[in-house]
């Protein structure tokens, strides 16, 4: 058995350290968790995401106290009880709605940052993969949450998305019914998506966030130049007081001080949207109650799913599903498709730089087209951009194979 100091005051640092190892824990997790110094504000997106997830969790807990998962009651519990009768219910709902939309903007910025600086390469593969798992789980969380107000778009988006599981010409309607618990979205459908949204998926997300943080530990955070740093040596320099010469900073308080400033600016934007500009995150169509007999003239997903929706749309049923399936999993393989030995920002990597901007612009074009009615020129543009997206995978393999070591 370990030795315990009889004279240590209960709950003093020493007392806690002997029982929980708090001193070591604090060093490992914060004061001696080393982050490169050469970073910009994009490196704060991880903490911004964590904070947004926190806001979603807290606002979600408050909403959960009044939400009723019942096809007959859900709509009014959200739009009347929470919005009218519950004190600050409107605030929690707007935070939750805006948070759910904005979290994807930050996720995309975070992902493109990772791609631009090559932060998925050479030992950092698991960071990328766990991040992609988080992206997919957040998508499922967003979709299941979108069902809960039981408005027109909840119902019809639920109908369309669950229909995808029929597998086109496979006509696996049995599977679709099994997922819905009914022939069409109804009470059984709503209650199971409620369970997923408030229990199973948040648990998975929390677990994945821990994993994602864990994956950063050994390969360390990347830096603006993609430079390989000897973290132990740099940490010694820092601890010896040679802060200017050292290439690293401790997570707490130095890295965190910058994160918190970025978060402050982000929260100004966030709450501006919550109070004055929430319409983009709360589609008017969903303020009409679900009606299985009245199809809305336009059915479209929220903006963050539009690019993959547009990959589904321009092809015929089966090809569309295959293309959609490829688009969903393709990004997982990024670390293995990129054959280049260089960890460097895109602007140092020649053809990869062009590839990066084509990917970004193509995904934005797909996103915009995904919301436009599929008519005339938009159909042709959609087909071209979907094909460009699918070709970007093999293209990456070829150009990174040719890339010379810097």
């Amino acid at each position, binding site marked *: 058995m370990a030795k315990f100091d009889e004279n240590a005051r209960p709950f003093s640092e020493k007392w806690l350290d002997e029982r929980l190892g708090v001193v070591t824990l604090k060093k490992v997790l914060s004061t001696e968790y080393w982050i490169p110094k050469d970073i910009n504000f994009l490196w704060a997106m991880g903490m911004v995401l964590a904070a947004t997830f926190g806001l979603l969790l807290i606002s979600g807990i408050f909403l959960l106290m009044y939400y009723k998962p019942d096809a007959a009651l859900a709509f009014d519990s959200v739009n009347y009880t929470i*919005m009218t009768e519950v004190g600050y219910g409107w605030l929690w709902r707007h935070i939750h709605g805006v948070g759910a939309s904005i979290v994807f903007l930050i996720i995309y910025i975070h992902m493109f940052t990772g791609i631009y600086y090559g932060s998925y390469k050479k030992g950092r593969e698991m960071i990328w993969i766990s991040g992609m798992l988080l992206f997919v789980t957040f998508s499922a969380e967003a979709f299941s949450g979108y069902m809960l107000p039981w408005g027109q778009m909840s119902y019809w988006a639920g109908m369309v998305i669950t229909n995808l599981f029929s597998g086109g010409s496979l006509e696996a309607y049995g599977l679709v019914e099994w997922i819905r618990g009914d022939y069409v979205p109804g009470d059984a459908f709503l209650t199971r998506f409620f369970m997923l949204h408030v229990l199973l998926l948040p648990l998975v997300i929390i677990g994945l966030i821990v994993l994602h943080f864990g994956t950063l530990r050994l390969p360390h955070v990347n830096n603006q130049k993609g430079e390989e740093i000897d973290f132990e040596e740099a940490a010694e320099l820092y601890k010896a007081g040679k*802060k200017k010469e050292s290439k690293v900073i401790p997570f707490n308080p130095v890295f965190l001080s*910058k994160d918190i400033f970025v978060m402050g600016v982000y929260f*100004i934007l966030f709450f501006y949207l919550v109070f004055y500009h929430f319409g983009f995150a709360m589609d*008017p169509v969903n303020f009409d109650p679900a009606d299985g007999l009245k199809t809305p003239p336009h059915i479209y997903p929220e903006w963050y799913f539009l690019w993959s929706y547009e990959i589904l749309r321009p092809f015929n049923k089966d090809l569309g599903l295959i293309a959609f399936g490829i688009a969903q999993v393709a990004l997982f393989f990024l670390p293995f498709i990129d054959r280049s030995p260089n960890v460097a920002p895109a602007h140092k990597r020649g053809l990869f730089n062009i590839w990066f901007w084509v990917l970004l612009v193509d995904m934005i074009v797909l996103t915009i087209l995904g919301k436009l009615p599929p008519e005339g020129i938009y159909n042709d543009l959609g087909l071209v951009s979907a094909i460009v997206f699918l070709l970007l995978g093999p293209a990456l393999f070829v150009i990174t194979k040719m890339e010379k070591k810097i």
Partner: protein
Amino acid sequence: MKELKVLAVVVFFSLLVYWGVEPFAHGQMHKHVDGDKFAYSDLPEITKEGDAANGGNLVMGAGACLGCHSIESQGMPAPMDAGTAAASYGVNPPDLSNIGALYDEKFLAALIKNPAHALNVEHKFDPAAGKMHPMVAFYGAGGDIDQEVADMVAYFKSIAPKELSAKEAFDNACGRCHAMRYDKYTQLGDTPEFKYEKDALAYQIKVLEYQDHLKAYMGKLPPDLSIIIRARSAHFLETFVENPQTQLPGTSMPRVGLSKEGYEKVEAYLTEIGDPSKPKREALGPWVLGFFVIFSILAFLWKKYQWRDLH
């Protein structure tokens, strides 16, 4: 500075996505309808000077308005209750006490002379096919019909109250077809409190019976408008109420004929019930934003302090 350049790139692409999926896509999805600002330019101007006293005589007498309508403010009760009226006409005819304050006068004149035309429902009511509008047109009392109609409109304006509440406006203009369940309001008006459940149920049956007549008349039950203010854009609602056919061709909803001021009252009621947090948002917003501005300034100073000897 390099970070600002990076920020500019991030902001540019974020705004591009926003522009594409919000203003641009919605502009492509919904056809733009130019409103008429409640001018009703297609209806003829009233050319005669109306005489309210004579108008009153016509309304009570030869005009035969009171056969179907009430004028509560003048002590004229409705000839039958709402349910029976709906059974006879499809919908309960409106009380005429405050129509002079709510509706455009050109519209009222046109309505008296040719209801189906003024209401823009000629696609539904065609006398040649034997489908008469339940409101009988006024064919004149023997004199100059335009003068007589002008007199009646003058009478309605003379008895109309100076001030109408937002809810009274909704009640007259929309409330005989549309319920507002978030205000405990049905087509029969405000739902009373009942001590015994059987009385509440009996009332509910009356509402359902009324709605059945309305369904038969309109083709479907007109939607509850509790949160329509959030389900449609302000522009859509305004142009739709002004002339439903422009936004939804073939709809059985009639043109309502509200004046601009009348519509603003209706809109105020829809906002009060459908978006009650609006004043709270506006009151709390500046405080929360102010908090985060101060937070960011302090955080910036702390960051400066922590990074002071790093470079």
